[in-house]
């Protein structure tokens, strides 16, 4: 099982280590740091590294490496999933996951890690269980603690720990009972030069913020559940009901959680909300080239496309750009060769355009690679797959909760080839 954990910052400093079995010398990280040196980008460090005596499984998240040391055969996905949980836990407790935050809360992070694993076996990874055992820091609490001498550590057994619904504690009470759901869809797509869709799919997430007293039993149904190709549920969802009736039936965790994720990959169902007309060309002589990009709305179901942003990875030999944007503004970073054009809202009457000249470094040949465009966008109040929540019912409690559903569509990995 998981032997040790090291947190490493991008410059290669180890700033936290935790061992769940015997202590492993931190020199084991040298193998990882070596691999990190070799990789061009931090993202490119291979997640599984073999050393003579150990395996190193790592993730790169929030500009930090979470590196775990393994000595026996362990499912690597188990380790990777756990490392992401650690990152989420830090985020959840301290608002962000960064080196500073971890250093500022070193002891609490250490205590939390101790609660999360025992001898390398996961012990408590549910946020609500952890929070009952170690209360997250708040200003009020720290004042109270100093005055009264009480501590952040709970001394009763967390109620969720052993029940068949470990995600919910007993005795939750709210004065305002509310349940909100966010349907967030991301479009992953690859468009080719001519604008034809090479590949497109939708990754959807139904997030929830549920603040309900007692033990509510909820049922959420969709207008068109057959749209979904594959679904993954929070453990609270009763799979049998979904199989037979296509409804989500569950006792929710308290607070924020991801109820389900799904994807839609039937090509014809995936609408592409914008089109991009682009031409990036270089002169044969090799002295420079031209760039001309226009973005327009396509299938938007009558909604406005907002937050549009185009990112171009220009070839390494580009020296400078001289462009004009009819809408929004552009920035160009010569170090990373990234051209970012922030457009904002799309106006169908007046399509935004960015054009101008590119100049190459003196003597550089015509670039070999084709730059590629990444698109960002956002559409409020629309799930592009057409998924709609039909109704939400509550059983088991008497009060009437406030309910709400929000939809939003975003671009995921939305790429246009040139």
């Amino acid at each position, binding site marked *: 099982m998981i032997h040790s954990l090291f947190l490493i910052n991008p410059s290669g400093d180890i700033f936290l280590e935790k061992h769940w079995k015997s202590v492993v010398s931190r020199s084991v990280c040298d193998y990882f740091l070596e691999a990190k040196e070799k990789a061009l980008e931090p993202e490119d460090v291979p997640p599984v590294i073999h050393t003579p005596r150990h395996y190193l499984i790592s993730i790169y998240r929030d500009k930090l490496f979470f590196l775990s040391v393994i000595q026996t055969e362990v499912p690597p996905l188990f380790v990777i999933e756990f490392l992401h949980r650690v990152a989420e836990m830090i985020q959840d407790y301290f608002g962000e996951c960064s080196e500073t935050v971890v250093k500022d809360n070193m002891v609490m992070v250490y205590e939390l890690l101790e609660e999360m694993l025992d*001898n390398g076996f996961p012990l408590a*990874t549910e946020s609500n269980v952890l929070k009952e055992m170690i209360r997250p820091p708040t200003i009020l609490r720290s004042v109270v603690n100093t005055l009264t001498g009480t501590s952040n550590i*709970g001394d009763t057994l967390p109620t969720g720990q052993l029940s068949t619904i470990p995600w919910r504690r007993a005795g939750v009470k709210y004065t305002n009972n509310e349940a909100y759901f966010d349907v967030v869809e991301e479009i992953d797509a690859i468009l080719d030069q001519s604008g034809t869709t090479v590949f497109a799919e939708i990754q959807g997430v139904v997030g929830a913020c549920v603040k309900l007293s007692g033990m509510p039993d909820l049922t959420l149904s969709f207008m068109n559940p057959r749209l979904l190709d594959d679904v993954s549920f929070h453990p609270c969802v009763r799979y049998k009901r979904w199989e037979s009736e296509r409804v989500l039936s569950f006792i929710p965790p308290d607070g924020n959680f991801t109820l389900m*994720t799904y*994807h839609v990959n039937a090509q014809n169902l995936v609408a592409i909300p914008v089109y991009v007309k682009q031409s990036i060309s270089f002169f044969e002589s090799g002295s420079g080239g031209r760039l001309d990009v226009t973005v327009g709305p396509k299938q938007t179901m009558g909604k406005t496309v907002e937050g549009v942003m185009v990112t171009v990875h220009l070839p390494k030999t580009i020296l400078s750009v001289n462009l004009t944007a009819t809408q929004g503004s552009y920035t160009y970073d010569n170090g990373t060769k990234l051209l970012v054009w922030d457009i904002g809202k799309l106006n169908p009457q007046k399509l935004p355009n960015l054009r101008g000249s590119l100049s190459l470094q003196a003597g550089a040949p015509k670039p070999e690679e084709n730059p590629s465009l990444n698109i960002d966008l956002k559409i409020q109040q629309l799930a592009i797959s057409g998924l709609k929540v039909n109704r939400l019912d509550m059983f088991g409690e008497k009060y009437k909760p406030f309910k709400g559903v929000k939809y939003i569509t975003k671009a995921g990995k939305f790429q246009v080839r040139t």
Partner: protein
Amino acid sequence: MTDSKYFTTTKKGEIFELKAELNSDKKEKKKEAVKKVIASMTVGKDVSALFPDVVNCMQTDNLELKKLVYLYLMNYAKSQPDMAIMAVNTFVKDCEDPNPLIRALAVRTMGCIRVDKITEYLCEPLRKCLKDEDPYVRKTAAVCVAKLHDINAQLVEDQGFLDTLKDLISDSNPMVVANAVAALSEIAESHPNSNLLDLNPQSINKLLTALNECTEWGQIFILDCLANYTPRDDRESQSICERVTPRLSHANSAVVLSAVKVLMKFMEMLPKDLDYYGTLLKKLAPPLVTLLSAEPELQYVALRNINLIVQKRPEILKHEMKVFFVKYNDPIYVKLEKLDIMIRLASQANIAQVLAELKEYATEVDVDFVRKAVRAIGRCAIKVEQSAERCVSTLLDLIQTKVNYVVQEAIVVIKDIFRKYPNKYESVIATLCENLDSLDEPEARAAMIWIVGEYAERIDNADELLESFLEGFHDESTQVQLQLLTAIVKLFLKKPTETQELVQQVLSLATQDSDNPDLRDRGYIYWRLLSTDPVAAKEVVLAEKPLISEETDLIEPTLLEELICHIGTLASVYHKPPSAFVEGSRGVMHKRLPLGGDIGGSPAMGAGFGAAPAVMPASLNAPVGGGLGDLFDLGGGVGMPMGAYIPPKTVWLPAMKAKGLEISGTFARRAGVIQMELVLTNKAMSVMTDFAIQFNRNSFGLAPAGPLQVLTPLGPNQTIEVSLPLSTVGPVMKMDPLNNLQVAVKNNIDVFYFSCQYPISMLFVEDGKMERQVFLATWKDIPNDNESQFQIQDCHLNSDAASNKLQGSNIFTIAKRTVEGQDMLYMAIKLSNGIWVLAELKMQAGNPNYTVSLGTRRDGEQHY
């Protein structure tokens, strides 16, 4: 106020200051001090000097302080074992605490203190906690058994904790069950044959019930444990599959992949015509696709596993090609894996799409990725015949880009295409030749030279081209040198008149000026061939080449089967069996897919593993005795033809170890000639040729009397039986065990080694009859210590039948006498090396056990 304040006191007296604070009367101050100590510890500072002071803070009602002290203890107890004893009392007391949280905490922490002395004190509290009324304590105690086992395995066994742990599998609480399974699995890993997780339909049922109710991590442990079970029949298999399928919709990707493993394995047992089989296949695709939208690290592990799954069952993902299309911002390790799977899924139906993608990738930035994309185009051409033409034209387009590394890769793969489809695409040679100068990598140069040599008759200036390479002959890598030598010889055989000078030049370069033995040898061989028999040279050098196999990159089927059983593990990421790399897993059990009722899917897997020849004792007597036993074992049928005993064939070389070649065999003595009877089976995907065999020196000078007669190439899944006559005049060297024979078998792929043991009886020669008088004299001559006795059990033969039977194996009865109801047979054996062995066989009527006394005159012979 944040914890960073704890790091500010890095001045000289830091430890001293902390000491004072730890001993303070104020609780708050103490706690702050312990926090400072922990903070220093987490960043790797040594604060072990404070051990006694910190341990003093342990006796407290404050849970936070207690936990902090425990954290410290776990880290430093090992370095201060004597001090750690101080903590024992508190632990034992805490294990009795009314608060289950404290009981659990105590037992949990105690297990983490890896000090031998403490473990003794741990046993009693642990035993209580394993039976605690609170499931939270029981589940913690279950893990503690695994911890203790890691420190002192013997103690855990002696104390009977393993049995208690097994009982916990039937616990009413699913979390306890999951933890017990996890602990047992971890313990079982260090005892591969202990049979700790003895699974039967009842325990499987309990696990399946717990599966639905435990946490995501518990589900992983239970699923991995289920995967080790072999259902009795297809109905049980189906019912398990049905209950595991819902896990495919779990949000935790590790749960999903473990469920996939169980399903992939148990599916093997389902009849293919079953409706449910088809349904299950369809259910597997969507979750695998969903794994690819997760974080890149998860994607990577998923892709490595999908790579195995598409090789085993391509039908699952055959329509999902597009999800493997590479995205611009995928990390490089994801890109490379996706590319590999794209090729595996390429078929006539989707090849156009795939090629368009690959061409796109060939213009990307990352050089490694571009190279692999170009190679992938070549693999497509070889895999999908209909696409070859399109692939070649795509490659030509890429060559036109003149991007150096693209051109070089393209030439390497075009060479393979030429080999796969000879005489089809030679029209492109002209284009290739234009790029000759830009090639600077050995592989590309070698490929180009091969092309020029192979098609020398169609290239007008082939001699000039090759000559240009010859100038810098000594600076080239061996690969290029060898290729150049062969290419020029080919050219000479095709156009002898103009190229005589060139061939002489290259032969002298290769034979006289080179230090490389391979190159020299090849040079000499060509030279002699050319000078003695040009016709033969033509036949050898210009012989038709075997077609290259399109599936060379596939994982060998037996390995694939094993890896499928290890889906989701490190083995599946490395595509190696766990025995190959997991430390401390000596004798890991090979897992294998169950054999389905109507599926011949995994041929001879069972026979391939574990059938290592029984280890024979080292002295001569034992093998002879064992042999004698065998000789009788044959018994039974009176009408059995008289003949030497032939042991059944055993597997000597499993296919796993020999790149797909499996050898089983036995030894026999027929008409006075010792024969090695071999069965060669090709379990690889490619044709095997050029078999040869050699023995290491051995105790009786056994050597092949002729070459191995495998004349026809051995196709995939073909089996051939060969009989190899042996002589006993080879070099002699004492082996241990005496009858051990080390064999090397070579084929076109590699050389493989194995060892086997021959029955000594095979060496008994026909002229082993001895005169009575000589026998008597010799028998008396034998010194006592050269004599030994043992029993042969359970033989139901009378003395005459035995005598007849043994004679068939060249064991001759010299005399027979009956004393007190016992038949005594006196027998002589002559070994092939001229050594006589005399035996006395005592048989009692009605008693199936015989006593044999063996003796030999030659001193030291028994100990040889």
